[in-house]
């Protein structure tokens, strides 16, 4: 029994799902494009390499007697594999579309780099733990990185938002990494002041939180939010705000914080709506995308067309026309999945994210150290909330904001950050009292 646990058989079994899915998926894309049943071994090289990478990580973890969670990595591998299949589908079947033609190769490279990052994070996890001492340094560096975007010539503006640095041939989106730094900071900060924050002092009938202790954190959080708003990155602002409130609530258990902060956020949203034209546009197209379907409502309308034409069972991989949706490879990838795999596919993807969230909280609740508990909750909340915000935007549940769908969307910074976060969660999962499950 103990030996079986060490051999990580559960992980091996679960890894079978993404392995078969990627082999079948990538082959299917090639066959659909070719229109006949002829194929060569060349067609599955990428899939075989991906399976190889999964097995390599698994073997490494087994050989080093890694005691961490066995479900997390297969779940992440499954999501990554869905992303790879979709990117391959965009590149091969929409080869004439210059935006989509190159995404498969680049995404594949990023995935392999991401797996390397994951492994490195697990291997050097103990060292990373020590870095929490420099939390202020990290967070200030992170904020500077974000501020740098505002410097003319440094930040690259794409589609009206300055969210990228150009590093040679690649675009780097700093917030993807900064959000991890922010969560590390919040977890470390809150963990150190756990007892203080839970306390309160009374002024007459009012029970007030220990405001002085909150000041540094509040300053950093308000600062990051302001930077994100100035950068017009509302999705990230919402995401970061949500994670902040979640961690604060975890530590204090006080609903008052949630209400007050939620109130502030609503107020900010109203002010933003009044002030910024682009916020108004987002809200209006959310409420009625078809009133200006040629222009502002175009993207969300295309998304709804894709989802609707997918119906229950979908058009089948490669048989839809998702290339009509602007930014289908990044923000809108869920619509493409909905079109080609139908309602069944959409719900399945939602289900996999739920498994990821469940596993993240499970790991956090079993973690031994307070810092790890909070870090785990923060990272899991990012995964869950980010998926929620972007999918909700795509299906017209909330106004559309630009965020990537974790592990599935095309994007190097996003993939690397997600694999880094997975590595952290895996590291946390190994730090339990009874030593893993």
């Amino acid at each position: 029994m103990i030996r079986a646990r060490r051999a990580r058989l559960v992980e091996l079994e679960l890894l079978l799902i993404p392995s078969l899915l990627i082999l079948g998926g990538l082959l299917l894309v090639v066959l659909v494009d070719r229109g006949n049943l002829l194929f060569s071994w060349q067609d599955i090289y990428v899939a075989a390499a991906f399976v190889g990478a999964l097995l390599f990580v698994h073997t490494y973890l087994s050989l080093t007697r890694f005691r961490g969670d066995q479900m997390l990595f297969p779940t992440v591998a499954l999501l990554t594999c869905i992303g790879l299949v979709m990117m391959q589908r965009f590149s091969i079947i929409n080869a004439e579309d210059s935006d989509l033609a190159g995404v498969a190769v680049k995404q594949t490279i990023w995935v392999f780099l991401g797996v390397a990052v994951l492994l490195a994070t697990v291997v050097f996890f103990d060292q990373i733990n020590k870095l929490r001492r420099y939390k202020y340094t990290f967070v200030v560096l992170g904020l500077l990185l974000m501020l740098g975007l505002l410097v003319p010539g440094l930040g690259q503006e794409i589609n009206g938002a300055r969210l990228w640095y150009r590093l040679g041939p690649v675009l780097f989106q700093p917030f993807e990494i900064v959000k991890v730094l922010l969560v590390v900071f919040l977890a470390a900060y809150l963990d150190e002041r756990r007892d203080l924050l839970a306390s309160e002092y009374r002024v007459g009938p009012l029970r007030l939180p220990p405001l002085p202790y909150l000041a540094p954190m509040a300053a950093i959080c308000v600062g990051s939010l302001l930077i994100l708003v100035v950068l017009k990155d509302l999705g990230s602002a919402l995401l970061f705000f949500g994670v902040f409130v979640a961690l604060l609530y975890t530590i204090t258990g006080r609903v008052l914080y949630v209400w007050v902060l939620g109130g502030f956020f609503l107020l900010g949203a109203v002010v933003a709506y009044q002030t910024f034209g682009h916020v108004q546009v987002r809200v209006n197209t959310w409420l009625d995308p078809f009133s200006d379907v040629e222009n502002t409502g175009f993207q969300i309308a295309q998304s709804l067309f894709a989802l609707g034409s997918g119906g229950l069972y979908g058009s089948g991989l490669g048989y839809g026309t998702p290339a009509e949706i602007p930014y289908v490879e990044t923000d809108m990838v869920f619509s493409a999945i909905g079109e080609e795999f139908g309602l069944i596919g959409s719900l399945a993807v939602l289900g996999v994210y739920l498994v990821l969230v469940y596993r993240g909280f499970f790991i956090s609740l079993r973690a031994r150290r307070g810092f790890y508990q909070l870090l785990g909750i923060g990272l899991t909340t990012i995964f869950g909330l980010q998926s929620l915000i972007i999918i909700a935007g795509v299906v017209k549940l909330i106004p559309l904001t630009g965020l990537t769908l974790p592990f599935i969307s095309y994007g190097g910074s996003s993939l690397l950050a997600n694999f880094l976060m997975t590595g952290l969660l895996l590291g946390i999962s190994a730090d339990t009292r009874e030593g893993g499950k």
Partner: protein
Amino acid sequence: MRAFLRLLAFASAVALLVYGVLSGTDTVWLMTLYAATVPIGYIFFSMVPRETIGWRRNTWKIAAVLVIGFIMLSMQVLRQQFIVAADIIDHPNNPRKVTQELRTQRGRVFDRNGTEIAGRKIAPNGYVTRTYPEPASSYVVGYYSATIYGADRLEERYDDYLSGERGDPLERTRGNVLHRPLRGNDLYLTLDARLQRIGQELLGERKGSIVAMNPRTGEILAMVNNPTYNSADLVFDPSRPNQEAAARVRAAYNALIEAGDARLVNRAIQGLYQLGSTFKTVTAAGALDTGVATPDKQYQDTGVLSVGGFVIRDPNRPDENKVQWTFSEGYMYSLNAVFAQVGLNVKSAGMREYARRFYFEREIPFDLPVTPSQVQREPDFLTDQLGLASTAIGQGQLLATPLQVVMTSAAIANGGVMPRPYLVANIKTPGGRTVESQQPEQLEAVVKPEVAAQMTEIMQKTVNDGTGRQAQIPGVPVAGKTGTAQLGENQDPHAWFTGFAPADDPKIAVAVLVENGGQGSEVAAPIAREVIEAHLR
């Protein structure tokens, strides 16, 4: 207690969502969906184990909030992909509709001998171009101008079959599952593409129309119109960048309209023309059927006839000295004075009745919309003696389509029973199964069989010895009637001929109209002869 509250919360959440779904509007749905999070939230929060306390309890609640978020997402996805999906994808701005339209392998159209009239060319990238290999027949089929002008004629009338929307649901489902492009059903027409080409050549530069049908069955064998157009000009190849091609199609269409000669009108079924003497067939059949005349009944014709104070002139008498003419001779030589008297004998009610029996003033059931022919424009025209007399000889306010005229002959040829005209004989699925099949039908018994036989004999005499001599074919008995519709001082008359052959065993009935062509006996009759010969050959 807690279980009961949970049940209550669950019920209220379900009730809210059901109301949201039934209300139909997006805003109400979103409001109910957001409202439903309150009871669902209560259920989840109340389910956090009691023994879980402190930060663990808080974490459970955060997890619950995320799960509620995913439940809302699932509900919204369910709505967008299932409940309102059909409405959303019908939106005109959905590019999938256009792509699907351009990739639909539209059904082909064949003539009675299997000649392809409308076909398809499938590019390697799946886009389909409509082809029209038979320009003379493409006019009847109409055009299918994807994404620009839509469909016309048979292409429009049978669009649901041709596009594959209707047909064999099983084959369609199988095609969907196997991701085959949608394939439409093929039409098999009664039309003879060869006869169409011959008819088009015979008309040449002249405006006009030729309609030929099998009088026994109602199958339309030819429906030629001139001036015509080539449906292929209104189609572009969507498999390549098509800005220029679309501009070419628009230019071609505008040219058709600017030509100003009504080439987009299907003259054979939509053109209303003065009839001239071809209407005498109706008058004669009515007179014989009601018994007010026999073929040998004598009438006086002195070249003029005074009716109601007006004078009807008769320029058609072959012998100016002869004043006694039989009913048969009156028809053979198209004597106006004789037929004015016949008409007065039939009386206005009878005239109206027989015109209606021959389907004047009525909707003719057909594969394409037919303009009803007109007996009178003013409601009391026929009650007036002069109106009645001039109608009886084919003048007055009569207006008819060439199809109406050929059906008149077909009813006589078919023993007095009007056949139902039709163009589409069979509709077959891509798999070759027949889904629709038109059997010959009879519309109405117009005159007694004896009357039809008498009329056949008279019409045969008309071709043998009367005005229709130019329609004679050696060895084949032809029955027919000429017509020359006077239009006024400065215009040449319309030339008409209608008839059928062989008279003893009719296989084809024709109507020929040449607009402003001159004398029916000289212009229309020879064309009819060529058409009949070509068919019987």
